[in-house]
């Protein structure tokens, strides 16, 4: 399934995941964590992985011009 809108959507999702990763890494975001303060590197790494996956999926979804 290839379309420009899907590719853009996945790309935006990737950027959002990167921002969330950054917020977890500096300790601003505390949602679904075991402690209520400090950085959450595990969560940050997870969102970096999700960002990478989204950006890769965006590249796959991009229509090719032959």
């Amino acid at each position: 399934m290839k379309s420009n809108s899907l590719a853009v959507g996945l790309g935006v999702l990737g950027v959002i995941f990167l921002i969330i990763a950054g917020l977890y890494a500096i300790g601003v975001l505390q949602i679904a964590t075991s402690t209520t303060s400090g950085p959450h590197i595990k969560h940050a790494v997870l969102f970096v992985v999700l960002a990478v996956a989204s950006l890769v999926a965006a590249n796959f979804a991009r229509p090719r011009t032959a």
Partner: protein
Amino acid sequence: MGLLQGASELFPVSSLGHAVIVPSLLHWSFKQSDPSFVPFLVLLHLGTATALLILYRDQWVVIIRGFFTAAFRGQIKTDSERLAMLLLVGTIPAAILGVFLESRIKSLFASPYVAAGFLVVNGALMLGFEFMRRRAERVALTTSGGLTTSGRIETEEQFAQAERISFKAAALVGACQALAFFPGISRSGVTIGGGLLAGLRHQEAARFSFLLATPVILGAGILEVPQLFSSGVPVGEYVAAAVLSGIAAYASARFLLRYFRSGRLDPYGWYCIAAGLVSLALLGLNL
């Protein structure tokens, strides 16, 4: 503990279950509530992951290269590129569930009684996977011309290699890893079983399971290592245990890959049921 962890991590018999049950049965002075217990286990896992990296070093080079090539090209052209993407897809559900649920589930169920109970469940799962697989084998043999007298290896060849698994199946197999947060349920057992249900050969299901486990175990291990150094534990002894764990894991993986050329999950299923029931009885009698 290192040898036990390394040997039981890749066998479909739940290393976590054994790590919870065995010290209790043998009255080892090992406090599972100790803050260094989980980092210690993670360090042992790191030994296992290193063993798997060494075992599959050539494949990992090809997989990593395949990942970057396919990611930048935006297209999958080779088997190794497909395998790299399958591993990414399979790792994501396990990573999400691991980050958000692992500590909650483990703290809820970290009791030898519960682990022994889940070990019995794990055994039943293994037998269930093989029951469904045998049914699939009968269907495959019937559709391929009724070669009912063919040997195990020929029967296995009717099934697929890891690279041919669908992306949906890879995600499901990856999500199955989360079941291993319940002490007594084996990560390799459920992922090998999931691979069998997805139509892989036993040996390929084991290979996919080991490849899938490596980034998760390695990632979790690396992230937990700083805790180990900050909690004032005997790091030297723990590292020695991790090395032993790695050696046992390497030998286990070699054995299992050979065994699954024609072997099945049944013996491990029966072992888990027996071990779980015996453990429950011994724990109940407080021996």
